[in-house]
């Protein structure tokens, strides 16, 4: 164990920092859950890509820089340090990207990864269905083979980014006779293809953060299937692993929140509840613990290891620390917490952040599902 950055790593950090300082928008963008904000964020993705920062760990051939996970962590730290916008292409770069990298053909890698890294194609996820949320194996949307195409019919819901994005990915039942985890395939589809209807779903905060998707005999070329027909469940589990695992929530995000929370506390110190002081310290400690753990996981993967059911520990830890930190902020704000704009008219980011934090324990596999996984797979308790 060696907890100091090499001169090369320090140089890399300086390079990222300089670029971010020069390029991060001075004013916060409009929320990416709204159409105007979405386009601002796509603009930002393209600007990032222009600096070749789309996804630093990917091979140069696909628009990356071929860097390692420690460098990725440094990149993320500088990204959040600079207050850079949320990644509108998160579903693509952090979920689908690693999936294509692991399961895709060379042709698929070339076709999908490069435009993703360049911010040219923005991706939505399409996992859930109205009756398949926590129970994803209950999927009924079909993709029936017809020559060199699949014909997709059915419905997906709670698809993040799907209100405005270009493409989507999800699981479809390619064997109509199959049950549960079998007979599913992992398929990518054009959200503008004929037969796809998007119905934006208004979220808690009032903006259409995700959408319902209706498929009416949508024709998708067979070459849009990742891995073999009927192997979708395993591919999706790997993708879900990425989601819960290393990349979806980089520690820098929570370190930034903890830093802001400390500042908020200092401003409210004289009229804070006694426990708030401890909750603020806990937010910093938990963000740091999550950072150490992420560095440890990154080191393990770089040394040839892999992350399995432990990903469920991560999911629970970050989602609950995030909610707790934002709840503390809401309590520090007291009677102002409900205001969408605080003094001077600035957006109440703590309120927005608290609302978003409530989705953490629900999505990417609810924390109840994660606790089942920990109990059954890590501890070996009976199902």
């Amino acid at each position, binding site marked *: 164990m060696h907890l100091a950055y090499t001169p090369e790593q320090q140089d890399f950090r300086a390079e990222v920092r300089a670029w971010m300082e020069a390029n991060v928008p001075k004013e916060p963008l409009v929320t990416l859950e709204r159409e105007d904000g979405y386009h601002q964020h796509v603009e930002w993705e393209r600007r990032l890509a222009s600096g070749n920062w789309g996804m630093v760990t990917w091979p140069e051939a696909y628009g990356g820089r071929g860097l390692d996970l420690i460098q990725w962590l440094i990149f993320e730290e500088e990204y959040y340090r600079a207050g850079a916008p949320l990644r509108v292409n998160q579903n693509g770069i952090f979920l689908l990207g690693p999936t294509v990298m692991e399961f895709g053909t060379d042709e698929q890698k070339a076709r999908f990864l490069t435009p993703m890294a360049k911010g040219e194609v923005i991706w939505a996820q399409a996992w*859930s269905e109205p*009756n398949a*949320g*926590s*129970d994803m194996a*209950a999927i009924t949307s079909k993709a029936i083979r017809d020559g060199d195409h699949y014909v997709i019919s059915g419905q997906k*819901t*709670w698809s993040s980014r799907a209100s405005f994005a270009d493409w989507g990915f999800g699981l479809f039942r390619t064997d109509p006779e199959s049950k549960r985890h079998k007979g599913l395939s992992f398929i990518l589809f054009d959200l503008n293809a004929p037969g796809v209807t998007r119905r934006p*779903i*208004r*979220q*808690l*905060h*009032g903006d259409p*953060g995700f959408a319902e998707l209706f498929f009416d005999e949508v024709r998708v070329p067979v070459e849009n299937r990742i891995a073999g027909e009927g192997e979708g469940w395993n591919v999706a589990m790997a993708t879900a692993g990425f989601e819960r695992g290393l990349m979806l929530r980089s520690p820098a995000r929570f370190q930034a929140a903890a830093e802001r929370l400390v500042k908020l506390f200092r401003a409210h110190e004289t*009229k*804070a*509840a*006694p426990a*708030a002081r401890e909750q603020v310290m806990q937010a910093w400690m938990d963000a740091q613990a999550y950072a150490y753990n992420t560095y440890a996981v990154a080191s393990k993967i770089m040394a040839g290891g892999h992350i399995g059911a432990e990903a469920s520990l991560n999911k629970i830890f970050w989602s609950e620390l995030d*909610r707790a930190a934002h*709840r503390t902020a*809401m*309590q520090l*704000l*007291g*009677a*102002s*917490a*409900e*205001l*969408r*704009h605080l003094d001077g008219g600035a957006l109440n980011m703590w*309120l927005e952040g608290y*609302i978003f934090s*409530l*989705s953490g*324990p*629900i*999505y990417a596999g*609810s*924390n*109840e599902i994660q*606790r089942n996984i920990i109990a059954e797979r890590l501890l070996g308790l009976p199902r």
Partner: protein
Amino acid sequence: MDFIITEDQATLTQGVRDYLAGVHGPELLRALDTSDSRRSADVWRGLVEMGLPGLLVPEARGGLGLSLLDAVLIAAELGRAGVAEPLADTALVAAPLLAKAGGQDALLGAIAAGEAKVALQHPVNPWVADLEDASHILSVKNGALLLTERSGDSELLDSVDPLRRLYAPVAASGVDVGSADALLDHAALIAAAQLVGVADAMLEQATDYAKNRSQFGQPIGSFQAVKHHLATAVVKIEFAKPVIQRAAVALAEGTASASVHVSHAKLAAADAAWAMSETAIQTHGAMGYTYEVDLHFWMKRAWALAGAWGDRAFHLARIDAAVIGGALPIGPGHSFA
């Protein structure tokens, strides 16, 4: 000594609940949400016809002359139904304060008739609810409570709760009708009472969802994790209720320690409602994160009322002075100190 809700009180409360369930359901909340004023003259007329504005107005002034204990039971029903009309502020907070102040017979009569509405401004809040809907305003200067007719406009602030209408505070003025502290205690008590109603509504919604939503071939409410989340929430809610009732009696009787009991009530109710809100959205899963289920109206009300009329820190400080500071006798034998 008896700690009991009378049959009359239970009947009145149930009547209000039934009435509101009929006219003030989620459909109405959705309709109000898309209206400009977020208020409905029809709804107000109905509330007036039910006699609700006059509940705490003395009988001689055309009201029912009920007590603060009745008030907290009704306030819970307003919370349960998601009522955002300025009924609670006017009828359950301002009316008893004005009745106690004396000399406000005309205004009390107008309140009972549903013709006057009173907005409440106190430095503990950076906003005033329903200011422009009000005919009168109670505000605070140098610790005194001042009453005046409202005039002029104020800036509309943007609450996360789509049905709350908040305005920037205005200059305090008017005739002295009591103390700022009395306003705070009364309003905090009524906020606490609304919060348990809000919590009960979320509990009911989450329970219904858990009974009807199936995953893995069974209702999610059959999973022990869901059961235990909800059971934990029930415990917090049910144990907040007697605290609110105790505070109502203390405040009505002018008990020296009434402020401490109000703070206890506000803390217990806000904690219960906040915990219930997180349990409720978790039970609803992704559906709970949408505007499509009704839950969000009540979650937002819970966040708002939890911070209103003294936040956790404010009320803890009052408990602190009493309990740790030693101003209040504590221990066995001091259940009703």
